[in-house]
C-alpha cells in the first residue's frame, strides 16, 4: 500500500476514503495487539490468585517446621532438602562456571571463544529431564538415590547459567581498565582477578542468584536422582526430599488433603522463587540505570 497523502481533489488536508480505511485498520490491529498482550499477562494473575486462595489456608508455622510423618504434616525436610541440594549444586557450579567464563573471555582466542560459546549454548539447552537421566544412569544403579546425585544433576543445569551471565558482565568491563592495570606492571592473572572480576563482581553475584533460582525450581532431575523421602533427618547420601518433589507427589496423589498441601507448598516455593527473581531484576534495573 503506497503512502501518498496529498492527492486530494478538494481540500488539501481532508481525509480521503483510503486514509479512513487505513486508520481503521490501524485501530483494529493495535486493539488486537493490546488484547494479545493482555492474554500474555493474564496467566500471571490467574496462577497467583489460585496459589494464594488455595495455599494460604493450610499455611501455618507447623507446616514449615514439621515433617511429613508428624501428627501435623509439614515440609521442613523438603525445604531443607531443596536448600541443601541447590546450595551444594551452587558450590559446584560457581567455581567451574566462573573459571570457564574467565578463560573464554580473557584468555581464549576468537576461534576457541566461538566453540566455547556453542558448547555453553548446547549445555544451556539440555532439557532438565535429560540431566536427571544422565546422573540417574551414572550414579543411581551403584549408589542408589541420594541427595548428592540430586545436587550433581542440578549443577549440570546451573553451570551454563553461571558461565553465560559471568561472560556477559566480564565483557562489559572496559578494556581501558585491564590496560591500566597491565601498564602498572600487574601480571595478567592478577589483573583478571583483582581488577576485571572485582569490577564485575555485582554482576557475577547476580548471575549466581539467577542460577540458584533455576535450581530451586527444578523437579524432573530431582525425581530421578534424589527421589524424595519422608525422613526428617537430612542425609545427603540417602534419598532426599525437595519442595518440588513434594508438590509433584502430592499433586498426583488421589488424597485431597495431600492435594491441598501441594498448594501450600507451592505457595512457599513460589514465594522463594519470586524473591530471588525480584532480587535479580532489581539489581539489573539498578545497574542499567547507572
Amino acid at each position: 500500500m503506497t503512502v501518498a497523502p496529498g492527492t486530494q481533489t478538494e481540500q488539501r488536508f481532508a481525509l480521503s476514503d483510503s486514509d479512513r480505511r487505513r486508520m481503521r485498520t490501524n485501530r483494529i490491529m493495535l486493539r488486537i495487539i493490546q488484547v494479545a498482550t493482555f492474554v500474555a499477562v493474564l496467566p500471571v494473575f490467574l496462577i497467583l490468585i489460585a496459589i494464594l486462595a488455595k495455599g494460604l489456608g493450610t499455611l501455618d508455622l507447623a507446616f514449615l517446621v514439621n515433617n511429613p510423618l508428624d501428627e501435623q504434616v509439614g515440609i521442613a525436610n523438603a525445604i531443607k532438602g531443596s536448600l541443601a541440594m541447590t546450595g551444594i549444586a551452587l558450590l559446584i557450579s560457581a567455581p567451574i562456571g566462573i573459571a570457564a567464563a574467565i578463560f573464554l573471555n580473557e584468555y581464549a582466542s576468537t576461534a576457541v571463544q566461538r566453540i566455547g560459546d556453542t558448547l555453553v549454548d548446547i549445555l544451556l539447552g539440555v532439557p532438565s529431564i535429560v540431566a536427571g537421566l544422565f546422573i540417574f544412569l551414572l550414579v543411581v544403579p551403584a549408589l542408589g538415590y541420594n541427595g548428592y546425585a540430586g545436587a550433581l544433576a542440578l549443577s549440570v543445569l546451573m553451570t551454563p547459567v553461571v558461565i553465560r551471565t559471568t561472560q556477559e558482565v566480564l565483557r562489559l568491563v572496559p578494556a581501558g581498565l585491564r590496560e591500566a592495570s597491565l601498564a602498572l606492571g600487574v601480571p595478567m592473572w592478577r589483573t583478571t582477578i583483582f581488577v576485571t572480576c572485582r569490577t564485575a563482581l555485582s554482576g557475577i553475584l547476580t548471575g549466581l542468584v539467577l542460577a540458584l533460582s533455576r535450581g530451586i525450581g527444578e523437579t524432573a532431575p530431582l525425581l530421578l536422582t534424589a527421589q524424595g523421602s519422608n525422613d526428617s533427618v537430612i542425609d545427603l547420601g540417602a534419598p532426599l526430599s525437595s519442595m518440588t518433589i513434594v508438590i509433584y507427589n502430592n499433586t498426583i496423589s488421589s488424597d485431597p488433603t495431600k492435594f491441598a498441601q501441594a498448594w501450600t507448598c507451592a505457595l512457599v516455593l513460589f514465594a522463594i522463587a519470586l524473591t530471588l527473581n525480584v532480587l535479580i531484576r532489581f539489581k539489573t534495573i539498578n545497574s542499567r540505570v547507572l
Partner: protein
Amino acid sequence: MADSKTKVNIKTSAPKSSSAQRASNGASSSTAMRLLNVEAMYGSFRAVNDVTLDIEAKSVTAFIGPSGCGKTTLLRTLNRMHETLPGATVKGSIQVGGTDLYDPSVDPVRVRRSIGMVFQKPNPFPAMSIAQNVSSGLRLSGTKSKRDVAEIVEESLRKAALWDEVKDKLNEPGVSLSGGQQQRLCIARTIAVEPEIVLMDEPCSALDPLATLKIEELIGELKTRFTIVIVTHNMQQAARVSDTTAFFNMGADRGGYLVETGPTNKIFTNPSNKLTEDYIAGRFG
C-alpha cells in the same frame, strides 16, 4: 619517501654537563632510553617504520605528527603494551640501562613496572577508592614496600598535585572525581610504583582547557623526577611542555616514520626538514 627521512641522534640540549663527554658515550647517563631500528606491526601491516632515536633522561620528549602516523603505536612499544593486542609484534631493540627490553629473557611485566603509562581516557578503577587506586600498582603487583602504604599514597598524590583536593575524601570511589582530577589520580597511581620513565598518550585530549593547564604544569614538575615521553596531537602543547620533539609522518604505505627530531626550540623555529616546517606551519595535518 627516503629523501625526507632524517635520523638524528640527540646528544644533549641541556648546557649542564660536558657535551663532548656525552657525545663519546652513546649510552650516556643522560639517555634514559635508546630506540634502535624499532618497527611495530599489526599482523602484516607495518604501523611504524624503522625508528632510531634517544630519549633523554629527566626531560620531556614529545612525539608529534598527523593522525595515524603511528605515534601512539610507537609509544606502546616502549613499555611492551603493544604486544598485548592479538597479532601485534615489534622488531628492533629498545635499550634501557644497557638491557634490551625485547630480549627473550626479559619479563614484560617487570618492564611495565619501570615504565609507566597514562592513557588518553582517564581510567581509575571503579571498584576502588581514591587511596586504593593510588596504591593499586603496589598492592596488585605484589611489590613489597618498606614504607607505609598510606605514606606512599599521600606522597604520590602530592607529587601529582591532587593531595589538597582529595585529602578529605580518600575513601570515596575513584570515579567520583572530575575528568581532570581522575587523570591526575591516574598519574598518582602510575608514579606510586616509582617508575623511571612515564609514558603519556594524549593525556589531555579528553579534558577541558583548565584541567589541561593543570596537567601541563604538573608535567613540568614531574620531569625533575621522571623521564617523560608524551604523545600529543596538539602542537602548541608540545611546544609548551617538551624539551625534545620528534616529528612523525605517514608514509605512502600508510605506515608511520620518523621525520626529524631535535630540541623543541629548534624544531618549532628552525626545523631542518621541509615537511616538519610545513606541519608546524599548519600546511597539513
